[in-house]
């Protein structure tokens, strides 16, 4: 029964996993590019966004085709509608990785004004969130999805720490201003990535239970 539909759903699942892996890779790359001031790797991240966008379009088309042809209901409908929402979050994460990559290209070549300890912690924390939100989707793992949702607080706290550090650096020397602003924007992008990963985890919960995990955090 419905074997064609089930095959299509499998394809959809696989495409989402592929998109998730690409996005995850982009964040990892952009983190490395930031830490090592690797302009070439930053360019790889910028370029990868095209592929992520293309996958988003493919998945969206497949979802719309399935809605049109199969009139999904119940678990099938929740799955397809969740995927439609998740790809928007994944696409935004890709964009934000690209945005960070572009900042890396414009960062001045002078020495960094501070160690990037907290920023790299933040990068790792958001990478973990994205990876685990995708894992939660693949394994239909409610506990993991809820952990991702909780973990967003860690990223938010790191953002506040970084912001405070940068403010005091500017206060010490206005010459730190340009780099501080760049780092603040990068931190903000990571913080946003965390929010999108949380959204993905919430859609995982919705696809399993039909209920929203909590208030949607961002609407961009």
């Amino acid at each position, binding site marked *: *029964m*419905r074997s064609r539909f089930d095959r299509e759903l499998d394809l959809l699942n696989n495409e989402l996993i592929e998109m998730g892996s690409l996005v995850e890779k982009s964040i990892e790359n952009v983190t490395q590019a930031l830490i090592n001031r690797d302009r070439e790797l930053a360019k790889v991240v910028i370029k990868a966004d095209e592929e992520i966008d293309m996958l988003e379009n493919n998945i969206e088309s497949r979802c719309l085709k399935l809605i049109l042809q199969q*009139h999904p*209901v*119940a*678990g*099938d*409908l929740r799955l397809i509608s969740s995927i439609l929402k998740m790809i928007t979050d994944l696409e935004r994460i890709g964009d934000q990785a690209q945005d960070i990559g572009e900042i890396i290209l414009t960062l001045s070549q002078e020495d960094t004004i501070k160690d990037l300890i907290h920023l790299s912690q933040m990068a790792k924390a958001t990478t973990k969130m994205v990876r685990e939100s995708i894992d939660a989707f693949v394994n239909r793992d409610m506990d993991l999805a809820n952990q991702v949702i909780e973990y967003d607080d860690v990223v938010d706290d790191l953002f506040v720490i970084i912001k405070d550090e940068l403010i005091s650096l500017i206060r010490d020397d206005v010459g730190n201003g340009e780099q501080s602003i760049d780092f603040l924007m990068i931190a903000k992008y990571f913080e946003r990535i965390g929010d999108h990963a949380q959204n993905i985890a919430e859609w995982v919960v919705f696809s399993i239970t*039909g*209920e929203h995990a909590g208030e949607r955090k961002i609407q961009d």
Partner: protein
Amino acid sequence: MDKIKIENLDLFYGEFQALKNINMKLKENMITAFIGPSGCGKSTLLKSLNRMNDLIEGCRISGKVLLDNEDIYGSIDVNMLRKRVGMVFQKPNPFPMSIYDNIAYGPRTHGIKSKSKLDDIVERSLRAGAIWDEVKDSLNKNALQLSGGQQQRICIARALAVNPEVLLMDEPTSALDPISTLKIEELIQELKKEYTIVIVTHNMQQATRVSDKTAFFLLGEVIEYTDTEKLFSTPKDKRTEDYITGRFG
């Protein structure tokens, strides 16, 4: 308010138990859809609501069906019951007579003779059946000359002509084309303001489009009965999910 309450209803055709301990409340001015695979008992239950099963030999019923708290299997006048609980069938079945006489038939059997009263009833019923504009200039035309979709709306208008309180519909659009189906579905939505409606349908999209509540039947039992939106988005029972997602059997 509950228009119909079904309590511990069992129904047998000879040795075969077609309905097993059905307990349901149907709210007034709501549309309730019955869904389920063929032979699950949904049409049987529908017919039990105005005692159409009485005509079937070997049919035994126990339990209660309360219409406004009165047991329809008690001392109620069956003709009066069927006036209050009208039925529209799967296949349009207008009488082989004029459109006017089709609609006037019921009121006449209930003793209305006045031409002007009948005229009023015919117009009101055809308007309520969303077919007045299409037939107002040809009321003397034989109803069998109309299209299938028009015939079904004549049948709905005919059911409405005796001022029922409940309208039972047994797959009312399964013999119709998509446009006629949409017309009937819109009509059903309109009618809910005045009537309590129960519809049996094999078309699950139709159940989601028109009904407020849906009951899923399997092997003579109600497996799940809840808000339509809930049943089609987050069914509680795996058997419901398997059926509505097409993974049944």
